């Protein structure tokens, strides 16, 4: 069986060793390297090409978000799980824009890290339940205040299906195959969804999906 190769990046040694112990209890995980700041992480990923990078946001020299941006540019196939102390959407959105697939709160790392690594290794997104809850609460409050209806209700059942698959990490081609549609039709659905929800780009779409509880 091929093991999932993991690199750990955190400036805090205690945290790193705790996470390492946690990850190595899994039979199918292997931690192939540790980095203590953003630059080290970039260098390590470039040389080791792991499957998954578990990285803290708050690190000296180069912070996690900027490091993730650089890594995604050169190696889009590497899945990144961001570790953070913050559940606020500003961090989540930045992390998503930088190419992270998973977003994990440090408080819940112990319970959710294994699931998160599995999810992103399969190409799916993963968010700490606490993060999803905060995002959802903010979203509902905003809707209630503006008095407008949830634009999700404007989506057709087919569009909701497409939305679900996109945010699960499927490409247009995959979606077309799964739903037995042409790639062109999927693209049309996709742009309609973006327009109806007033979103720009996949990261915002994913954030939206997390808020709606479409993915966790």
């Amino acid at each position, binding site marked *: 069986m091929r093991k999932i190769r993991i690199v750990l990046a*955190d*400036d*805090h040694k*205690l*945290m790193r*060793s*705790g*996470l390492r*112990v*946690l990850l190595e209890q899994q039979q199918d995980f292997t931690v192939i390297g540790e980095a203590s700041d953003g630059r080290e992480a970039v260098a390590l990923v470039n040389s080791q090409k792991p499957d998954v990078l578990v990285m803290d*946001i*708050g690190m000296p020299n180069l*912070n996690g*978000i900027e490091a993730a941006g650089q890594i995604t540019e050169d190696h889009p196939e590497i899945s990144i799980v961001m570790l953070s*102390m*913050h559940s*606020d*959407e*500003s*961090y989540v959105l*930045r992390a998503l824009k930088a190419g992270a697939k998973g977003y994990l709160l*440090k*408080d819940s*790392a*112990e*319970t959710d890290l294994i699931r998160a690594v599995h999810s992103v290794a399969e190409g799916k997104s993963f968010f700490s339940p606490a993060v999803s809850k*905060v995002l959802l*609460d*903010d979203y509902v*409050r905003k809707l209630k*205040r503006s008095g407008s209806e949830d634009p999700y209700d404007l989506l057709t059942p087919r569009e909701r299906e497409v939305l679900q698959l996109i945010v699960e990490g499927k490409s247009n081609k995959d979606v077309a195959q799964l739903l037995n549609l042409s790639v062109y039709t999927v693209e049309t659905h996709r742009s309609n969804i973006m327009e109806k929800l007033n979103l720009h780009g996949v990261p915002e779409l994913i954030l939206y999906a997390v808020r709606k509880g479409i993915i966790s």
Partner: protein
Amino acid sequence: MPPEGSNHDSLANIQAGKVRRILFLAFGGLLALMVVAGLDALRSLRQLDGMERQVNQRYSAHNQALTTILISVHVYHDQMERYLIQGDASLSNAGAADVKNRGDEAEVAIEKFPADADAEERAMLAQIQQKILEQENSFALLVMAQAQGVPEERLQIVLEQMMLRRAYILQISRNIALWNERKLVEATESLAANFQGLQSRLAAMVGLSLLAGLLLSLIGGFYILRLEKQGRVRYQELVASRQQLEALSARLVDAQEEERRSISRELHDEVGQTLGALLVDIGQLSKLVPPEDTFLQSQISRIKSAGESAVKSIRDMALLLRPPMLDDLGLVPALEWQGREISRRGEMEVDVHSEHVSEQLADDIRVCIYRLVQEALNNAARHSGAKHAKVSIRQNADKIHVEVSDDGKGFETERVRGMGILGMEERVKRLGGTLLIHSTPATGTTIRAELPSRRVEAA
């Protein structure tokens, strides 16, 4: 150091008092000098005037008396000649008495000469008197001789003597007149000399006053110039100390911000991370303990929840001191977070709107705007009872405009200037910006700030 300062002040006061007294004395002295000179001149003039009048009076009185004497002498001799030439015997007694009367009149006129006559005059008058007496004797002799029929030829000698005497009397009278005239000239000359003396005294006084005045105005001028210079120096010192104070307060603000940042980092990165690691380890531990051991499991879960609450309070403290988003993500995300945080607490709804805000803003500008908005929102949420607040921030070529408005009950901007608003003004002014606060009960509060959009210096 207040004691030293007050010492310095009181010394300066004493000096100023001394100088003021000296100036007062000097000006008073000058004035007194001028008054004395004026009074002296007036007195001397009056004196000279009196003397002149006296001299003139004396001269005219003497002259008049002399004229009277001359006239009476002439009349006496005329009468005498007429009597002697007529030779009228019938009239002789009455005529002789008449001549005698004229002689007495002449003597009276001499006696009436003013009492202030000097020795020379007296001597000459006495001579005239003497001659008149002799004339009278001679006349008496003639009258007697005529009565006795003494021949004309023998009387001729007496007559000639009388004629000589008459000429002599007139000569003395002229001498007296000359003397009198000389006296007048002398007195006039002495008056002129007196007047000259007065003139030179006045000139000296005026010169002295002028000199003193010149000296005084020079001293006064120097003193004023010195005062002016001292004033300028004081003013410059004041400006310098004010600038120092401003620099100090700026440094204090910077130091406070730096302190907050480092404490926040310390809490967040060190304490928070250690607790996070602890939580991971506790999770591991709970997996190692069999689920049947409920006592140990409950102990572990209690430790875990204590750890979680510690993590939460550490994070809240760090966020309050300095939100890491300001450094991690930039100004706008930090402001958006701040707005959401207040909304989440249920205090009021906050909208954050931004346009073209650079992520490369200099740190002091970023911090200033963040603290400004934070203060404004906290004020609105705590004191104004606002339901909504709006934060808008937009950037153009060289300025950043920040506006925070709420729908609360407002406050009196002139009266209520708490530390918060003063702090805002201080921060904004220091960076070369302006702050405007508009607040009424009807419209709520709007705070507008304009700051230079300085970018972060290339390290």
